[in-house]
Every structure is written in structure tokens, then in C-alpha cells.
């Protein structure tokens, strides 16, 4: 049996040798961090859960190509982020739900908006503002904020030059700020 203290590499070595049980602790270890990244990218629980599941399945199936000694989570996250980007591209083509509908859905969840604290309102407005952001901007902000990745790491993950990361992130924050200003968030 494997446990929480086993290192990623030790588990991965067993998985590579054909012991699929060794993959379980890795799922347990990384499913929630990965879910958070996916959720911030797609802003939908079911889709985020599906993307996490798909990422683990893909990772398992291509485990032979993984080089021991490298950070497993970075590799897994790369698979997941690429999946999510593809998903968002498809979703973008087929999406018909207008933003107002999303807004309405969120409003429905607020039983008494007046009673909400300012902080709570701000958080919900941030969620709405993130929804309004273009996917490209949302992805880069999510990776920066949720994972606190460096520009180099984002450059590698998204396969774009570091300078592009820098300008894309700056633009994304600027857009988010504008959206929040339009929503009259102080």
C-alpha cells in the first residue's frame, strides 16, 4: 500500500512499472489544487471536475513519457491547462448563454443581496468580472493568482515568450480593472 509520505517519484516509478494503485495517492494529492486552477479557468464546477478527471486519465496513459525527477504536478498541470484551453476554444464556439444569464444565475443564489456584506459583494463582482474577461486574460490571471507562477513558468506552460506573458498579464489586469470600474466596484 502507498501512503501520503511517498514521494511523487517513488509513486511514479511504481506506476511506470505497471502498478496502477500507486497512482491513487497522486490523484489524492493533486486533485484539489488542479480543480482550483481548472475552476478559475472555466468558471464552472462540472466542467472543472471533468477537466481534472480527463487530465489524470491522460497523465496516466502517457506516464511512460514522464521523466522521473521532474516535478509531476507541473507536468500534470500542463496537461490540464492545455485541455482547458482546448475546451474553452470549443466552448467559445458553441456557447450561447449570454452573460446576463450568468449574472441572473448568480443573483438567484443571493437570497438577500441587500444583506450581503461589502466584501461578499466584492467577491461576487470579481467572479462576474472574471466571467466577462476574455479567456486569454482569464487564463493568465488564474495561473498567476491561483498558482503564483513566475513569468518563466507561465511562458513554458502556455508556450509563449516571456515578454508575451508580461504584456498579456498587464493587459489582463488592466481589463479586469476597467470591468470592475464599470461595475462601480470601489
Amino acid at each position: 500500500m502507498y501512503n501520503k509520505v511517498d514521494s511523487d517519484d517513488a509513486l511514479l516509478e511504481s506506476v511506470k512499472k505497471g502498478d496502477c494503485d500507486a497512482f491513487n495517492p497522486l490523484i489524492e494529492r493533486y486533485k484539489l489544487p488542479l480543480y482550483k486552477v481548472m475552476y478559475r479557468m472555466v468558471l464552472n464546477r462540472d466542467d472543472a471536475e471533468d477537466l481534472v478527471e480527463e487530465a489524470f486519465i491522460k497523465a496516466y496513459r502517457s506516464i511512460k513519457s514522464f521523466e522521473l525527477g521532474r516535478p509531476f504536478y507541473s507536468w500534470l498541470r500542463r496537461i490540464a491547462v492545455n485541455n482547458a484551453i482546448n475546451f474553452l476554444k470549443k466552448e467559445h464556439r458553441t456557447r450561447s448563454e449570454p452573460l446576463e444569464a450568468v449574472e441572473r444565475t448568480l443573483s438567484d443564489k443571493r437570497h438577500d443581496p441587500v444583506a450581503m456584506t461589502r466584501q461578499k459583494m466584492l467577491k461576487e463582482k470579481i467572479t462576474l468580472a472574471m466571467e466577462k474577461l476574455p479567456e486569454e486574460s482569464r487564463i493568465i490571471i488564474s495561473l498567476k493568482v491561483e498558482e503564483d507562477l513566475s513569468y518563466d513558468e507561465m511562458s513554458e506552460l502556455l508556450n509563449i515568450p516571456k515578454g508575451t506573458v508580461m504584456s498579456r498579464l498587464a493587459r489582463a489586469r488592466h481589463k479586469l480593472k476597467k470591468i470592475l470600474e464599470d461595475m462601480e466596484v470601489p
Partner: protein
Amino acid sequence: MKCDLPIELLNGYLDNELDDEQRAWVETHLKACPACRDELDVLKRIDRAVRDEVYEEPSSKFVLGLNRRVMEKVSIPRRRSLFRFAPVFVPVAAAFLILIVLINISPSKRLVDVNDRMFYEELAARQEVQVSIPEPKIARAPISKKGVAQADVDREKSAPARLEETRIAETAGKPDMPEAGIMAPAGEQVVRAIIDSTGIVIKVATGNTLVPEKDTMLENELSGQQLSPPTIAGRKKQVYVDFSTEE
């Protein structure tokens, strides 16, 4: 932000991604620029708010059942897709298609389309084909020219044959004399030649019946004669040329 500090530099400063020189420059600028200090504060607050953003907790199905679902799916052998044959199938299919195309554009195998024919006058006007053909051995008297185009004929003692009307169309599947749709009126003298797509005469028939007969002598004489490659609709094609004459 009203000043000239590039927004990328301010973001780089916030993210601690600047080198020492850039960082020192931004810090100096910030000391003197309240607008940029405000902007930096706003960016920090936005980052904090995004970090604290409410997100839906994952479902219990996800939290409790993900391992089992993943392991179930990875233990099922993936359905063998036909695409696994792609590395072999695609080149073979491509080669087959190329072969088909080559066969189809080969002059000797082309399918006939009797409706796809053109009048020589039109071709001659476009200078696409210049046909010179001797008068057939069985030709009668010199023939008056009615069409626009004319092929000068100079064979033995016969007078120059003149083209009354020439029709050009794609040839039949085999390099044989086409019939349907291009039959000469009965009683008219016909010289019919097949010219391949490079302009070489490869078959000749003559006669004054609806379907001219192979004229070996004339064919021997004309075979290999190089003419301008005939084209139809911009494509070089094997064509047949009818030289209908009247007595």
C-alpha cells in the same frame, strides 16, 4: 494612470519579475508619481480580490469518487481506433489517389465527354492550336474554306485542303476515333485526327461516311507531327480534330 511608466513594468514590479536596474528605476518613479502608486495599489487589491474570489467547492462525487473513476477508465483498454492504421493507410491511400489521378489524366485512358467540345474557330482565334494536315489521300477536289481557321495542306499533288469546319473535343477512353455527337454529315469528306495533349498526331482516319475509317497511310505520314498542344479550358488535353470538307 497618467504618466509614461509602461504598464508592463508596473506589473512586473508587482510580480517581482524585474531585474535590479528596472526595479530601482520603478521605485524611483513611484516615489515621485502618486498616480502610479495609486495604480499599484489598485492592482494589488485586484489580485487579492481574485485570490479570495469565491469559487464553488467541488462536488462530493468528485472529492470521493475521482480516484475510482480515473482508475476504472484507465483500466479499460482504449477502443482501438481505425486511426491507428493512419501511418500506413494514409500514404497508401495518397499513393492510390495519385495513381488514379495520373491514370485519369493520361491521354490514352481519358473518358470521353462529347458535349465538352469546342469549335476550331474559337481555338484558332485564341492561337491555341495550329493544325496543319495534308489533304487525305481520298480527298476530292480542293475545298472551299468556310471557317475562320485554315490549315495549310501540302501533300503530294493535291491542292491545299481547306478546313470547312473543325471541331475539337475530348477524346474517348481509348485513342480511337470518336463517334457520338461529332459525326460528320453523310456524304461529307472527313479527315479526323487525334492529337494528344502535347500536340502530337497519333491517329488519323478519313472517309465520307458518318464514321471515318482508319487511314494508315495518312496516319503514317502525319504520326509524330508536332502541333501546338491543344488546350480546353486552360488545360492541355488530348483532342480530336475534325476536318470536314465539301466537294
